[in-house]
């Protein structure tokens, strides 16, 4: 039966036409503009930065740098601080307290123990602890030498468990407590106040990272302890 015949009540015919050449061209051009905008945004945020340096290329924040780009002495200090932190965390897990630099040095743990092959300045290590924040600070013996800061942030009392996976900034103690940890350097460590640092980036410190931050990276909370 013919659909248009009077007998086919309730059935209607709709003609679907392809878009005109003009409409089709408009769609293609619009799509191309969107693709170019996405590619441009990606390149601007990954391949180059405004000042031409590749630093932002990895999604680093302005106060962050990669260990792989650092000088050899700084790389070594970072590596030794990682080792020292692991041992300090082990003591914290076992005793409930953070070990002093002297206690770590007595066990031969770098960078707190004196290294007879070290080429740079010697360091005096201090630990400060207030509230949730712990600082291991390396103060150089000479002006103009880099200072070092190992910043540990324990969870605040009554805070919800941190669901973050373990990575270079999240270390879980044996008892389950999740720490925020980070390593920082300052161009002139000898001139700085030895007071506890809670927000290093606000005081001119540069964070050294092994890997670029993951997509969606959020810096640790910067709630100050009074």
């Amino acid at each position, binding site marked *: 039966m013919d659909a248009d015949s009077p007998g086919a009540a309730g059935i209607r015919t709709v003609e679907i036409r392809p878009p005109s050449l003009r409409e089709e061209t408009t769609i293609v051009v619009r799509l191309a503009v969107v693709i170019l905008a996405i590619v441009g945004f990606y390149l601007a945020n990954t391949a180059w930065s405004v000042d031409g340096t590749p630093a932002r290329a990895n999604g680093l924040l302005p106060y962050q740098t990669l260990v*792989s780009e650092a000088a050899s002495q700084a790389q070594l200090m970072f590596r030794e601080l990682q080792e020292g932190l692991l041992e300090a965390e082990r003591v914290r897990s076992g005793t409930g307290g953070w070990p002093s630099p002297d206690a770590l040095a007595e066990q031969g743990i770098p960078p707190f123990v004196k290294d007879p092959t070290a080429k740079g300045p010697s360091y005096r290590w201090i630990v400060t602890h207030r509230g949730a924040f712990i600082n291991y600070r390396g103060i150089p013996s000479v002006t103009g030498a880099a200072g070092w800061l190992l910043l540990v942030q324990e969870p605040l009392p009554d805070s919800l468990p941190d669901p973050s996976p373990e990575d270079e900034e999240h270390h879980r103690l044996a008892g389950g407590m999740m720490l925020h940890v980070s390593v920082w350097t300052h161009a002139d460590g000898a001139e700085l106040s030895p007071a506890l640092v809670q927000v290093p980036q606000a005081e001119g410190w540069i964070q050294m990272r092994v890997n670029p931050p993951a997509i969606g990276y959020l810096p640790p909370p910067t709630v100050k302890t009074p």
Partner: protein
Amino acid sequence: MNGKPLIFLLLFAATASAQPRPTLKIGVTLHPYYSWTANVIGTLPGYEVRSILPGEVDAGDYQPRPEDIKKLMDLDAIVINGIGHDDFINPMIKASGNKKLVIIHVNESTPQIHAVHGSGVNSHTFISFTNAIQQTYFIQKAIAALRPSDAAALQANAADYARRLRLIKARAATALADAKINRVVTVHDGYGYLLQEFGLEIAGVVQPQHGLTPSAGELKDMVALLKRERIRVVFSEETFPPALLKVLQDEAGVKVYQITHIASGAYTPDKFEKEMQRNVDTMIKALVTEG
């Protein structure tokens, strides 16, 4: 009160606790990972550490074999380098069909230095005391996550191993503090991490790429560099052609010493300690005693 349910419960609990727990099988791709993992486990029962490659084959020369893929099929976890030293393992894991395998990427939080040639990273993070300690703890944490009941013992084992490695390093550092030579050339680009730990500099690397021998032109350039920079010591590896080393010795007057990159031989728990001890002994001989 009827004591039967309680008795049944106690019997059930006793039976359950008496049953041996299944063996946790952990694979490794490289020799150092075998030593580290074996030391983390120590004498704890219920573990197996399994090397995937035959001992005599250097990972750099390895071609996957069906019998090695079979070794992956029932593993619970595997320790891998993941930054270029064991790229063969990913297709092998896929081929094994093991979908429950936990992959322990030991370099996940290890800072890497640039390779001397090219734009890549130096994947030999394992020829180092500091990295060995950091990665031993990394392995320990990963195994503890799989066997939480052993977490404390695993951590104690890792700490004990770290102490032993630190002792070897400290003794070597005391001796190397008197080094008369602080700049060397290496044949192999694998020693950057180790030399950095003792404040030593690398003036150049002979191999244009890992495992490749230099061309005549590259060798000539190296001789020129050795003379220009007045380098007196070259650290070589076991497999580098002696004829090429002779050119460096004859033309530039350097002394050649062998450093192992712990890449072949039997897989044993003490292999890493023994070979690293030998390496630092060689460095002391080259840079202090005969330097």
